[in-house]
């Protein structure tokens, strides 16, 4: 059975500066996995997640999709399941309530504390401040939606809200992540695998510009209710988001989900993926560098994905992390891991994304 070696990096800011900087048998990055529902939570825990993150079935989190997320009872059950196995549950409360809706977000913070969540993941100042004042013992992680990319930004969240961890936006190069690990007042969590938002999280209005449905305000991006597929007589297909054409596909051409950032458009007389191809982030080969930089946790994206994805991706990363712990000097990214991960990638393609300069 796998030995539990987590939490050395996951505590307060002071812990991490005492922790060794080089890979060691005592310190290992935590694996934080998505749980869109109770079966996915259990699959992630069974496959070796150190922690899972979940959300309530409403707009308080950034994956407010139909049929997804947790009722109060399901969350209690999920927490019990995780805690019985020595793992953690974080609650995503990472959207931006307006004044009229603040009480709903505050109530969700209260429930996170009452149910025994190990941390909340939040971005919005009022939500973080409420949690800080009302439930000081409930740990607060700054969400990726908080868009903190620098040491001063992290200092702000640490001084104002006493955050014990921050999740970095997917915009930084590996060198920038390494430098930030040196200068951050708190341990850092980075995205390791999953769908790639190419825009700075928490500051993308492409969905709301087209549909009015906003990631920040409503917890959704390009929701399915606005998507219309059209089949043409010649077998081609078109896909529209609130009537705006996102892409057209040849008869057997694979078609991805029509978020604005992954559509094909015309720029300067050419039609191409002007913003980004359908592809997923995969940082497996960077694992040693992230560990050596002192990154506290690796996050897997995908609360909207099913049990098969969660189980397989978690198992793969668990294996990779355990191998690294056992023998950091001999570690290399194994082809079987990469092939398992590629199966779950958008368009079966993966990229190092912003971690690598050539992506920019």
């Amino acid at each position, binding site marked *: 059975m796998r030995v539990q070696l987590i939490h050395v990096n996951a505590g307060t800011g002071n812990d991490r500066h005492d922790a060794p900087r080089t890979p060691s048998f005592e310190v290992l990055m935590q694996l934080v996995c998505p749980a869109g529902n109770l079966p996915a939570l259990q699959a992630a825990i069974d496959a070796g997640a150190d922690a899972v993150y979940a959300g309530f079935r409403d707009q308080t989190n950034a994956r407010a999709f139909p049929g997804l997320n947790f009722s109060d009872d399901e969350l209690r059950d999920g927490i019990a399941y995780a805690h019985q196995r020595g793992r953690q549950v974080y609650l995503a409360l990472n959207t931006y309530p307006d004044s009229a809706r603040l009480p709903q977000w505050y109530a969700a913070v209260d429930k996170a504390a009452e149910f025994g969540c190990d941390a909340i993941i939040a971005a919005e100042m009022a939500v973080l401040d409420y949690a800080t004042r009302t439930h000081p013992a409930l740990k607060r992680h700054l969400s990726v939606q*908080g868009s903190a990319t620098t040491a001063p930004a992290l200092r702000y969240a640490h001084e104002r809200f006493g955050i014990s961890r921050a999740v970095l936006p997917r915009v930084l190069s590996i060198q920038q992540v390494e430098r930030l690990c040196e200068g951050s007042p708190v341990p850092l969590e980075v995205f390791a695998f999953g769908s790639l938002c190419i*825009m700075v999280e928490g500051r993308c209005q492409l969905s709301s510009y087209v549909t009015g449905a906003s990631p920040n305000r409503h917890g959704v991006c390009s929701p399915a209710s606005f998507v219309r597929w059209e089949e043409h007589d010649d077998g081609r297909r078109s896909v529209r988001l609130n009537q705006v054409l996102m892409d057209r596909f040849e008869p057997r051409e694979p078609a991805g989900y029509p978020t604005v950032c992954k559509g094909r458009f015309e720029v300067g007389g050419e039609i191409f993926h002007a913003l980004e191809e359908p592809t997923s982030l995969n940082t497996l080969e960077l694992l040693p560098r992230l560990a050596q930089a002192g990154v506290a946790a690796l996050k897997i994206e995908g609360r909207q994905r099913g049990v098969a994805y969660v189980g397989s991706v978690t198992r793969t990363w668990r294996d990779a992390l355990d191998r690294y712990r056992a023998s950091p000097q001999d570690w290399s990214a194994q082809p079987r891991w990469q092939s398992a991960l590629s199966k779950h990638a958008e368009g079966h393609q993966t990229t190092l994304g912003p971690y690598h300069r050539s992506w920019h």
Partner: protein
Amino acid sequence: MEMMKLSLGPLQYFWPREHTLAFYREAADWPVDIIYLGETVCSKRRELGTRDWIVLAAELARSGKQVVLSSLALIEAESELGVLQRLVDHGDCWIEANDLSAVQLCRERGVPFVAGPTLNVYNHHALAMLMEDGLRRWVPGVEQGHVLLRELREAMRAEQCEMPELEVIAFGRLPLAFSARCFTARALDVAKDQCGFRCIDYPDGMPLATREGRPFLRINGIQIQGEEITDLGPELPQLRELGVDVLRLYPQAEGMAEMVAHYHLARRSPVAPPRIGARNGYWHGEPGMRAPETT
């Protein structure tokens, strides 16, 4: 009732040095009250360096404008933080804080700041906290319309917090998204590190259309804007009634003097002007862009 102020928002595009200087020489004589200066999109754009912007700020201040130095929306590199630190240390101007790094540096140095539209303030409590940090003026994010502003104002009143100055984007292309990637470089098939500063060839950004030819977005380096030049002129009576203090006009390459004159006339008139740009759906609680059937 006090007349609303006019501001020139930060120049979002990359223009040649002489073009930029000539623009602001003209702007010194326009009836705008506030001018935001500095690079908010890409730190590689250096036709004007930090020192140039600070010199320009002093010149415009002498012609009676309030000058605010704007910070980058996305800060990644140490060098970019260094520039921000210099702007904050300059001390003579307020800062437009476009991310949390700028808020923190202003807070540490006691420099007053304007919360820019990419700062993500959605409710009265966040606004009140930022006021403790030194916020003096707030530019709501692009997706916030009149209902949200009214509710926020009422919530501030209920908690006996005074509103800061409220500045609303009245004219211009809306900044919608920022990335680590440069979309101009991508469109021209060059690496970001060897971009050749080609966005200087697109003084109003690079048009992006759907595959059926509908103009949709503008590519502006690492920033994506809406294609439509929004215009809240016809909504001015509502803005006035909501207590909006400042109307922000974003610089465009052509016709800015006329646009300022149009808004200057409109702010002194009790009658709303006709619409000369696009309707901003966000203001009305709708998608930001116009629905296809109404184009």
